């Protein structure tokens, strides 16, 4: 019961968070994919991770864990790295014996839309998304690990005092 009081619901914080989180995530996606402006995969991933941190701050860690479970976390973390390295592997396979690892122009898409556009597409839509996914999942995972630990310590201390 004491824990519920401690992390009681606050209408102001919840409403503001509910308003802000979609825009933060959209901005994170823009930073991650928009190669015209400043930013990149690392920064965009961190911005999206910040939106999850805001969610947990407003709605409590149990609900946050339920909406972003560990299984998804692990899947995103691995998928991002696999996407990036997989593009490199694809380039090796399609360049047939030249072994052009991570040379995106080797993908056969470049026969249709040209070398330069293929590289732009791969950079903006595959590589940066992969980096962003890994960074986002890694930071959310770090945050949840630290937050869980603190909560359990507080619970133990509270029990001892009572």
């Amino acid at each position: 019961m004491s824990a519920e009081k401690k992390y009681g619901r606050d209408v102001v914080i919840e409403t503001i968070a509910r308003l802000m989180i979609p825009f933060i995530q959209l901005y994170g996606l823009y930073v991650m994919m928009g190669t015209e402006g400043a930013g990149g995969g690392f920064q965009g991933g961190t911005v999206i991770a910040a939106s999850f941190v805001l969610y947990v701050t407003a709605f409590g860690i149990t609900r946050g864990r339920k909406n972003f479970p560990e299984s998804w976390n692990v899947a995103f973390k691995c998928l991002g790295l696999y996407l990036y390295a997989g593009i490199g592997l694809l380039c090796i396979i399609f360049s047939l014996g030249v072994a052009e690892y991570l040379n995106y122009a080797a993908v056969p898409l470049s026969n249709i839309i040209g070398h330069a556009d293929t590289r732009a597409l791969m950079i903006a839509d595959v590589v940066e998304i992969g980096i962003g996914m890994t960074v986002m999942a890694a930071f959310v995972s770090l945050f949840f690990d630290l937050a869980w630990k603190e909560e359990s310590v507080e619970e133990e201390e509270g029990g001892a005092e009572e």
Partner: protein
Amino acid sequence: MKLLPIVALISVILLGSLFVYVVEDVPAFGDPYSPPNRYINLSIGIDAEGLESSLDAGVLPAELRTKIEEIGYTKENAFPSLEEGKYEIERKEGEGEEGWDVLIMKEELYYPGLEKFYFIKEDGEKLWVYRYSIPVRWQEKCEEEMTTPNMVTAGLADYRGYDTLGETAVIYTAAVSVILLLRRRGKL
């Protein structure tokens, strides 16, 4: 008792003078003609008499070629060879940089083509040999090669793709090790 402040003062003065000494050599920010931004002097100076006509005709004089190869810019050291027919020379006019560009044929798989390598600067009666630095190629070619207007993203994900892959792997490894170290509960 008084030793500590005196030592601190001396070290502050030493560090300050070192800072001033280092900062004096740093070029003004954004100056496109400063050596680190534009090109590197190879310290090869040679008298210009008679060589200009040869350069204008598109032939690198033998004296210049031997001087360049003497400092180790040879084919054995993986620098482009300066045999006849493997380079082109273009006259360059501009404020503070009159001279000739030596363009080298690059035999890359997806982007073969001419690339600026040496710059022979005309300075009074002497010719000085410079080498173009990599950021010049980066600035001039990245939008053409990747249709990405952001130079930093293009470099991060393409020219330095291996580095970024490694960085992502480092973040992944850090997250996994934090899971192993901090997670005390059996569930999740």
